[in-house]
Every structure is written in C-alpha cells, then in structure tokens.
C-alpha cells in the first residue's frame, strides 16, 4: 500500500520535440497524488495533448522520466536514445481520444470485450456481462449490438469511455473528449466523466471547456510554451490566477478583455 501522500504519477523534466526546431515540452515537472483529478488547460500548441500522449506511451520523448505508483514507467536519456516504456505499467492507464477511435468494424459490445479478452485472457461470457453492465450505467444498454457508424458523437464517446474502463485503469487520460461534439451532446459525455469522479478514479483531463474544468478538477495546471506556468486548486487558477500569463489566458477565454 502506498501512503496517501506518495505520488501516483511523477513526471521529471520531460522534454519532447518534433524535428529539430519544434520543441513542445521543455522540461515539464508534475506530481500527481492518488485520487486527484488534474485538469490541464492552456493555449493551443502549449503541449497539453502531447503530455497526455506521452503519458499513454504513444510518443517518443527526448529526455526525462515518468514513474507510476512508484515504479519506473517511461524514460529516455537523450533525444537519440530509445524511449524505454514499461508496458505492464502502461496497461494500468486508460485513454479516451478526441475522435472516439472506436473500431468501426466491430459492434459496441465487441469494441468493449476485445481488450479484456485478448490482453487479460478474460472469458468472453464474463467480459460481456461486465460490458453490458457498464453500458447500462452509461445509458447505452440498448446499443450493445449497434455499430459505431449508427451512433451519435456523444454515444460514441461514451462507448469509448466504457471501452477504456473495461481494463480497470488506475488512471484515466481524457484528451479533449468533447471538442469534436455538437454543443448539445457535450453534457451527456461530461456527466459520465463526473460519475467517474465521484468514485475517486484518478484522471488527467485536457479540455477547453472551463465550466467542466471548474466542476471536475481537484487541481488545475496551466501549461504554456512547454512548461507548467501555474499549478493549484481550481478556485485559484481559474478564479484568481497569480501568474500574468494565466490571467491573460483566462480573461481571453471568458472574453473579458478584448
């Protein structure tokens, strides 16, 4: 058992660039405690999505390291070295993407049971039972046999969340999961994530929706230019930011200053 204060995730001087000239992450340090819900905000190109993709092990890094639950997870000594990823640790992290990324050739229930059956060797019957229960909980009980193309954007995104939860992740990453949705469908997806928050599932969320950020976050990080500019409780970072750049960004988002 880890004590309540021991970090769940610990990110140390993370550097990442695309090609020789575009540096996206310039020495990022973040510590995340168990049960925290961290919302990452900031201007486009500030490295928010890249951070989540690195944490999922989807991107190579130049240097830095990440530990998860005290275990080494991702590390690289320099840009030419291979990025070492502990795939066992990776399996305890789930991610939901902006564009759903459901498997279009599989039905909803098949999308859900694929990973538990193939990754953990779970019996199909038991996985199907769990999947059905999860779908019911998310208001999708009747859609088990539908194909992704027959669902609305909001439904697809809820299926994608359920699919990730099937592996009982210890941490969930949400990368702008409502950005591609029509405005009237945003709430149904956010409701599902709020449900998960009530169960104290640790999560890291990148979003542009400040209302959602305020409601879900236990902590907000403002990221710009590849570094953490401000880090604190939502009331502080969103309400009365201490840093000039954060204030500027928040004002712009709420259209206070022209």
């Amino acid at each position, binding site marked *: 058992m880890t004590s309540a204060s021991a970090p769940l995730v610990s990110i140390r001087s993370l550097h990442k660039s695309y090609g020789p000239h575009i540096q996206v992450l310039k020495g990022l340090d973040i510590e995340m405690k168990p049960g925290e819900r961290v919302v990452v905000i900031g201007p486009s190109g500030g490295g928010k999505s890249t951070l989540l*993709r690195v944490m999922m092990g989807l991107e190579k890094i130049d240097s830095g390291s990440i530990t998860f639950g005290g275990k080494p997870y991702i590390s690289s000594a320099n840009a030419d070295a291979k990025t070492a990823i502990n795939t066992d640790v990776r399996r305890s992290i789930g991610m939901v993407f902006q564009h*759903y990324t459901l498997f279009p050739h599989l039905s909803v229930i098949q999308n859900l049971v694929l990973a538990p059956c193939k990754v953990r060797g779970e019996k199909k019957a038991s996985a199907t039972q769990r999947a059905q229960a999860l779908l019911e909980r998310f208001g999708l009980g009747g859609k088990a046999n539908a194909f992704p193309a027959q669902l609305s954007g909001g439904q697809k995104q809820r299926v994608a969340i359920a699919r990730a939860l099937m*592996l009982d992740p210890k941490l969930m990453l949400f990368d702008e999961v409502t950005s591609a949705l029509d405005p009237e469908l945003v709430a149904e997806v956010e409701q599902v994530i709020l449900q998960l928050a009530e169960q104290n599932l640790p999560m890291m969320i990148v979003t542009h929706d400040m209302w959602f950020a305020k409601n879900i976050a236990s902590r907000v990080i403002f990221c710009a230019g590849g570094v953490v500019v401000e880090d604190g409780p939502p009331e502080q970072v969103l309400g009365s930011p201490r840093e000039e750049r954060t204030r500027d960004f928040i004002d712009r988002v709420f259209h206070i200053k022209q």
Partner: protein
Amino acid sequence: MSLDFSVLLRFQEALALGLWTTVKLTLICIVLGCSLGFLVGLSRTSPSAIVRGIASIYVEFFRGTPVLIQLFWIFFCLPLVLGVELSNLASGVIALTLYMGAITSETFRASLKSVGREQMDACIALGLPRRVQVTNVILPQAVLRAAPTLLSNCISLFKESALVSAVGMADLMFVGQNISNNTARPVEVLTIVALIYFAIAFPLTRAVTLVEGRILKKLAI
C-alpha cells in the same frame, strides 16, 4: 450477309466446357493471386529495404508489361529455365496468379494504409499485443476496405484469362475461335462468346458498386 445463330446449337457442349475452363482458371488464380497479393502488399510496408525493394520490382514489372508477354514468357521460357515441362494449365495458372498478385498487392497496400494512425493509438491505449492489433483490428478493416477493389480485380482477371487462348489452352475464347474457324461463321460465334463474357462480368461490376456503398456506410466513423 445473313446471320444464322442456329449453327451454335451444335456447339453448346464445347462452349460450356470452354467456359468451365475459364471459370476454373479464374477461381484458382483468384485464391492464389489474392494470397500472393496480400503477402506482397504487406512486404511493401516492411521495415527491411531489401524486402520492400524486391516486392516493388515485382509489382512494377508485372504492372508495366503486357500480360500477353508475361504469359508467353512463362509458357515458352519458364520450362527452359526450370528444365521441366509445364502443362498448359500450369503455365496459365502461374502467369495469371503472378498478374493477380501484382494488381491485388496494390489494393491491399492502399487499404492497409487507409487504416489510420488513430486506430493504432487506440490499440496501444488498450494495451493490445501486436498480434491482436493485426488480426483483430487492422486486418479486418483492411479487407473490408479492399473488398470492392478486390472484386474489380477479380473481374479484370476473368477478362485477362481469355489470353490463355493465345498459348493454346482450351478456354472459352479458344473454343470460340476454333468453332469460328471450322464453321466459317465468325460473326455469330464470336458475338456469342463476347456475350457470354459480358453476361458474367457485367452483373459483377454492378455488385462492386453495391458492395462499395454498403462498406462505406459501415465504416463511416
């Protein structure tokens, strides 16, 4: 001149036999050619430059030369090179399989490419092992996307198979030409032969359009 299609009645059986040879040859080469095409399509995405190079040379060469000359080469030259006798059927099968392999490999390659980066991200996020990624996610989607074009490839093969008549294999075209020479009634005989090919190929081309529509609808994400 007056046309008399009744001469053909006497040759029903011969034409049916010829058609059977054509169909048999086509079906064998569809199975062999698609398998070859899939392997070659995969090889063209291989990390090894040598594998990629060999695969591209094969595809470009077979797409860049007339099928007739490929057929002649295999029919006349391959036995000399290998030092073994090849039956008409064997040469026909080898030539058309190589042709089909070249054109379907392009189909498979394009469809493999069309399975997007985001699907790969999802596979990794779900921790799927490489083998599962290929067999459960990439392959089924690639095959679905390739299906309409593969069907078109099959129609092309069916038509190209008529070339084996030029090396003396008794397919529909060869039988037709023989009857036409014996009866001195080329107009009637060759027209019927053309119509038989048409009667098989035309409905298949309609099927391509149907399949295409259904698959696009299913894969629309």
